[in-house]
């Protein structure tokens, strides 16, 4: 808690803005005493308990649950006070529940301990004083130089100092961090001596912050006899903990952030206990019942003393008190009487409900794992349930937050077509996909017209050069063999990594799958990129000649410019700039006469949902280049506003280009993604796409998924719309928000807030990460909440919302914001990568997709499914059913205990408020455990009030249960009234029967235990038959359990009354049940009362059906009262 508080409060004010780290020997040991700054160690602590505090802490946490605490109190009361029932009746179940939970939590914490231990004790190699020392991971200190070998994960955040690769780069995958499985290139800090032992430097960098893509720092390198050199540090120098080193034999780096301060740790949120809305409802009902209980006890106590005040009532001659009772203080007696009443009526809140709910959840979740529709033959796995607490929440989802890459799309880019000078080139492979990559024949053009060969080749060269793709070097082969490259490119570089995307097999690695797709596209047309060596790019052209280009500068991609460029120098000495980027960012920068031809193609492709890029080039004259070169170098070294400066230079260089062509790359949607999204929207669920991807790409995906329709009006709040030039960003933001709010919220006719009910204009909202952080972290306090509200209101009135360029934590922020908004809607996050973990953890329900990008999401999710399309069944069928089931379970439990205890309460009026139980102790204990628990459990597992197929076909059925429809006060009151009615009927029915207790034909009379047993029999039968009436789906199990538990009750009662039980102090029920059944009157009254109790229920059902035929009747072609054998779908 403290740590988090620190992070929230501190950061800005408390801490200094940067930290200084000393590497190696201190500069001039002659300096005055040097105090090393204190940083936290590299230990990871995720466990909650230690051996010592486990018992108290765990017990404390368990008894914080309102129910557990209540049962504890009841138990203690029973132990202390002379109560009508024995402490065992409530102590035993409580002990059982507490023990099981403690064991489970202890085991989980032990696993965490073990994991912590493994991480913390992991051996790492640290260079110290020139020696390589093997250390435990937890002992790494900030400033240590750590050596990491291939395929190892980095133990902390490191600044890359040295790589085994010649060009001072290394490759990492950050699959476990942000979900991107492709290899990223990181660079060593330039000008570092080969001998790290001699290295002496200080690193100044910012304090730890969670943004994975941001890092600013500088390194001051001291040399023995020279001036110190300053090198700037950026994210490309920082290796993050959790990332894995690939394709590089080993690297050395200096630790800058350790332990809980690493970016990875900062980005993870604790997997907090998620509680479902149903549990909240249960707690609310619990409070109501607690009030009922208290008032009942209070009423009884008061009446008792009023009654006793009459002479002769309190202690008639036949019923004297023991001396001890006489001596007790009056007020103490009142209090203990009150407690006794509490204990007598405490069965109204049964501990068994919690057990049953837990069992239902656990067993219910098995049906999800068993569902063969969730089985994916590709990965040979079905669904995985990590927590069973949230089954019913799946039926309540109002917002779905989905990741794009890997979730909506397959993250499998494919080059579809290109357009050169307005001529369309479509590549179609006739062979299967994989084989198609190897086709390196000449260009396949389906169109008769072609651009000039010169332009064609220029375009293809641009494709080959303008990227940051690396050629993957096979790990098995010797690295020095330059000739091997050619083989790999032809697809021979197979390295056994089956799960890697196909492009890996081809041997290309890049930070963006688009680039790989483009480079591969170029391969199809005859231009093969051979690799980058010593800043020279090699291309194999159509004539099988190798062309060499010297790579001078890479103008990296960034989301604001939305383009990237390279500056190369060809053999002939020409300096060329190739630029590719989004159409909107390229068109203004090229000669306008070229635009129109291309724009047509680009627009058409974009409409089809392809990711389009435009390619342009320009020749740089020597002066131009010199100027650009100087500008770039200067900007790169700037410590202040480096990004802005770089941007300015980039913008300056990337002008006056000429457009060559455009490309179209398809990011394939997941199977049935559009259908799934459509049916979810039909179910009234709002879908937000949260992606780290670029806006254009995300937008096209949204169109492809039919989240945005053709007529959807898009409201954009992005860096682009904010960058209006005229105004400050903040002012512009304000203006836009107000404008959109007017459009989306205020123009909607009042009362129609849900966009699905009106056929008015649909709105889609687009926001990007930068704008979002402006909305959320507005500098003005007053505006901040206003903006947030406006933003939320706009979003809630849009059919779909797209948030692009999101950092993982921002995703979680959005989820949190919606989660905490008015009406606290139920949110669901779905994603496949580690970048989705935080939002998966934040949302009410987190769903992981067992995709290609590691297991992070799956492990942190509540449910994991193999494909997006499975979400539909998970929500519409499983979620719906589980919600209905558990809602019914909860209501039924409260109901059955109300009508169980109400007669007992009423009996107090007839027994002098003496806390005399109406039922025998065995019945009191077993009512909830044995007689009535199994039918409701079976019901809550098997019930399908609407069959699954119908649920899947009619997404609108999902809305019927939205907003916790079955657990709101209305239904609760209905159930409660029913319980009260039943209780009254049971008690007074038997009461009037007993106005003459001679109920047998031999004139013998019945006593109080017979009375209780008759009430109890009616109760058990009514309650069970009521459930039978509610059951719409009678499988053999329901039959077995319902009739079975009734039969069990009868058999048990016979048995219980048939023997003199030696361990019982009182043989209260001896032969009572048998005697009872020998009386015809009792039979008649039992039948009468059961029927009378169920009559309103039947009437309700019957009256409801014809007047408001529920969709199920309309949709489900169920022949009433007939067996319907559902077909086994294969």
């Amino acid at each position, binding site marked *: 808690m403290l740590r988090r508080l620190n992070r929230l409060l501190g950061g800005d004010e408390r801490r200094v803005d940067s930290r200084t780290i000393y590497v190696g020997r201190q500069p001039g040991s002659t300096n005055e005493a040097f105090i090393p700054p204190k940083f936290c160690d590299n230990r990871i602590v995720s466990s909650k308990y230690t051996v010592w505090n486990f018992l108290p802490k765990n017990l404390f946490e368990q008894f914080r649950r309102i129910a557990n605490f209540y049962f504890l109190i009841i138990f203690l009361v029973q132990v202390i006070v002379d109560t009508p029932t024995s402490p065992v009746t409530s102590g035993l179940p409580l002990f059982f529940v507490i023990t099981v939970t403690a064991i489970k939590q202890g085991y989980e914490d032990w696993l965490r301990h073990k994991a912590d231990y493994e991480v913390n004790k992991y051996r790492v190699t640290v260079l110290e004083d020139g020696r390589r020392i093997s250390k435990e991971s937890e002992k790494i200190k900030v400033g240590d130089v750590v050596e990491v070998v291939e395929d190892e994960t980095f133990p902390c955040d490191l600044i890359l100092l040295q790589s085994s690769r010649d060009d001072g780069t290394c490759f990492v995958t950050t699959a476990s961090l942000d979900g991107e499985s492709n290899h990223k290139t990181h660079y060593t800090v330039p000008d570092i001596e080969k001998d790290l032992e001699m290295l002496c430097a200080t690193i100044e960098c910012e304090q730890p912050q969670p943004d994975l893509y941001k890092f600013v720092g500088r390194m001051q390198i001291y040399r023995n006899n020279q001036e110190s050199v300053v090198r700037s540090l950026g994210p490309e120098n920082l290796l993050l903990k959790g990332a894995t080193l690939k394709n590089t034999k080993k690297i050395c780096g200096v630790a800058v952030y350790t332990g809980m301060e690493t970016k990875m740790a900062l980005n993870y949120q604790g997997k907090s206990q998620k509680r479902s809305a149903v549990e909240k409802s249960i707690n609310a009902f619990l409070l109501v019942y607690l009030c009922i209980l208290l008032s009942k006890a209070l009423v009884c106590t008061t009446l008792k003393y009023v009654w006793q005040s009459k002479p002769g009532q309190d202690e008639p001659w036949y019923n*004297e*008190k023991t001396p001890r009772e006489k001596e007790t203080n009056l007020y103490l007696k009142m209090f203990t009487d009150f407690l006794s009443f509490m204990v007598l009526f405490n069965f109204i809140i049964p501990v068994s409900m919690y057990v049953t709910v837990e069992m239902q959840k656990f067993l219910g979740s098995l049906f999800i794992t068993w569902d063969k529709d969730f089985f994916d033959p590709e990965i040979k796995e079905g669904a995985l349930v990590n927590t069973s607490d949230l089954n019913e929440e799946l039926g309540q989802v109002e917002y779905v937050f989905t990741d794009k890459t890997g979730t909506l799309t397959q993250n499998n880019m494919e080059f579809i077509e290109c357009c050169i000078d307005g001529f369309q080139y479509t590549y179609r492979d006739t062979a299967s996909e994989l084989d198609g990559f190897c086709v390196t024949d000449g260009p396949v053009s389906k169109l008769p017209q072609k651009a000039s060969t010169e332009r064609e080749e220029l375009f293809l060269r641009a494709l080959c050069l303008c990227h940051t793709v690396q050629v993957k070097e096979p790990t098995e082969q010797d690295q020095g063999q330059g000739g091997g490259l050619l083989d790999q490119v032809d697809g021979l570089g197979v390295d056994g990594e089956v799960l890697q995307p196909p492009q890996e097999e081809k041997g290309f690695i890049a930070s963006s799958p688009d680039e790989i797709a483009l480079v591969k596209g170029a391969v199809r047309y005859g231009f093969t990129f051979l690799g980058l060596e010593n800043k020279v790019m090699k291309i194999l052209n159509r004539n099988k000649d190798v062309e060499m280009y010297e790579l001078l500068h890479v103008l990296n991609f960034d989301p604001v410019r939305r383009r990237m460029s390279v500056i190369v120098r060809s053999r002939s000495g020409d300096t060329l700039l190739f630029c590719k980027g989004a159409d909107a960012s390229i068109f203004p920068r090229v000669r306008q006469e070229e635009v129109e031809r291309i724009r047509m193609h680009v627009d058409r492709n974009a409409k089809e949902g392809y990711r389009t890029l435009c390619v342009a080039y320009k020749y740089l004259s020597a002066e131009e280049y010199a100027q650009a070169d100087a500008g770039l170098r200067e900007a790169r070294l700037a410590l202040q506003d480096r990004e802005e400066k770089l941007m300015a230079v980039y913008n300056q260089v990337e002008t006056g280009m000429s457009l060559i062509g455009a490309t179209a790359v398809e990011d394939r949607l997941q199977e049935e993604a559009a259908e799934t999204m459509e049916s979810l929207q039909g179910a009234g669920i709002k879908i937000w796409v949260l992606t780290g991807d670029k806006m254009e790409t995300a937008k096209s995906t949204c169109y492809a998924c039919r989240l945005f329709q053709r007529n959807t009006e898009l409201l954009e709040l992005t860096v682009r719309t904010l960058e209006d030039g005229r105004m400050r960003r903040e002012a512009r933001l304000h203006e836009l928000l107000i404008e959109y709010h007017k459009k989306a919220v205020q123009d909607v006719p009042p009362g129609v807030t849900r966009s699905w009910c009106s056929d008015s204009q649909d709105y889609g909202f687009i926001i990007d990460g930068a704008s979002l952080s402006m909305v959320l972290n507005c500098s003005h306090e007053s505006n901040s909440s206003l903006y947030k509200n406006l933003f939320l209101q706009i979003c809630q009135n849009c059919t779909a919302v797209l948030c692009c360029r999101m950092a993982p934590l921002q995703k979680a922020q959005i989820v949190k914001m919606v989660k905490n908004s008015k009406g606290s809607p139920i949110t669901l996050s779905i994603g496949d990568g580690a970048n989705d973990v935080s939002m998966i953890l934040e949302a009410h329900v987190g769903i992981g997709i067992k995709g290609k990008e590691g297991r992070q999401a799956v492990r942190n999710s509540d449910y994991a499914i193999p494909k997006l399309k499975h979400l539909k069944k998970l929500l519409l069928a499983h979620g719906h059913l589980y919600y209905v089931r558990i809602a019914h379970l909860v209501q039924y439990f409260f109901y059955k205990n109300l009508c169980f205890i109400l007669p007992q309460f009423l009996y107090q009026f007839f027994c002098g408020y003496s806390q*005399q139980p109406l039922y025998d102790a065995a019945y009191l204990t077993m009512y909830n455990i044995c007689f009535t628990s199994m039918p409701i459990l079976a019901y809550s597992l098997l019930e399908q009030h609407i069959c699954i197929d119908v649920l899947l076909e009619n997404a609108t059925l999902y809305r019927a249960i939205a907003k916790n429809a079955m657990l709101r006060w209305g239904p609760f009151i209905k159930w409660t009234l029913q319980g009260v009615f039943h209780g009254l009927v049971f008690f007074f029915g038997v009461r009037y029967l007993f106005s003459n207790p001679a109920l047998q034909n031999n004139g013998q009379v019945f006593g109080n235990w017979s009375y209780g047993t008759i009430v109890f029999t009616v109760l058990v039968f009514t309650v069970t038959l009521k459930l039978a009436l509610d059951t719409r789906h009678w499988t053999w199990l329901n039959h077995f359990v319902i009739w079975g538990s009734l039969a069990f009750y009868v058999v048990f009662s016979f048995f219980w009354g048939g023997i003199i039980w030696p361990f019982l102090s009182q043989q209260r029920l001896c032969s009572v049940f048998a005697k009872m059944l020998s009386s015809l009157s009792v039979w008649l009254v039992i039948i009468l009362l059961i029927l009378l109790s169920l009559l309103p229920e039947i009437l309700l059902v019957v009256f409801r059906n014809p007047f408001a035929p529920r969709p199920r009747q309309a949709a489900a072609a169920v022949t009433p009262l007939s067996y319907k054998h559902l077909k086994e779908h294969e």
Partner: protein
Amino acid sequence: MMASSYNAKDEDGNITVSGPGGGALRSKKPENTAFKQQRLPAWQPILTAGTVLPAFFGIGLFFIPIGIGLYVTSNNIKELEIDYTGSDMSSPCFNCSQSFSWNSTKPCTCTIPFHLDQPYDSNVFMYYGLSNFYQNHRRYVKSRDDSQLNGDSGSLMKPSKECEPYAYFEKKPIAPCGAIANSMFNDTLELFYNNPNGTKVKIPLTSTGIAWWTDKHVKFRNPGGSNPNFTAVFQGTAKPVNWRRPVYELDSDPENNGFINEDFIVWMRTAALPTFRKLYRIIQKKDDLLPTLPRGSYTLEVVYNYPVRSFEGRKRMILSTISWMGGKNPFLGIAYITVGSVCFFLGVILLIIHHKYGNRSNSADISS
């Protein structure tokens, strides 16, 4: 609690998250069984007006005759109740009720004349009834020792704590212990038929067959087994404080003495409500031709031992015949007739609604 905002599970792929169906079900295709796929064949009844209508009519038609039958039966049962509490000055027992004291040795007797307007034909059951007597009070109900009553010799000498304050008397264990036993009803009721010729004929009362068979033979047993020497068996015990005689002198018949005395057993079955009746005696029908109790005047002779005035109780003597449904109780008959009629009535309403609605739905179907 949230400070450990980092989960080490994320670090290590080897940890399988505990949860249902964790590791075992991985990479295994789920079985395609009807149960696991939630496709068990099922009966899906839907209650509609159409299906419920016959049931309503059926219930109505079934319940009304039963109700009438019950009502008639109940009405045919002859019952006579005589309150002999003696709280009124005019009551013959007034004196007895006033001059009550526990240790009076001379029994107070009162006679109450009454008249039967109708002859009682079958066996007549004689009950005593008490009002405002809380036999179901918790302190009272639990104040007994069933193992003592079951003949357990250990409990005989060492009664259960529950019997307090009626467990020991002068250091001697009380047998039978407890408040219930202590307060056993001890009025003696006798019936005399006043022959028209002026003689008083004592009507023979059977005191057996009034307790539950199982109580008499299973639940209640005398200590010492079949030892007929009760004095020896009950040696060392005290009689309940309010009793005049020890338990082994309740009856002369050894089969009806001690703990298995039927009056005692009947008393020990605590009543459900504060107003109750208990079977006292049975007047067996002797002759098929003569009524058990012919029309005429009778005298009830009460040996008034049982005080009820202190708690404003009432005492009654009830003479009743019994039918197959037990004693007189019009409630069941009325309830059955009511419920039956309500069902029938609802059936009619439903029929009307169903008729109307059916037409509407048909037209709706056509139009759609």
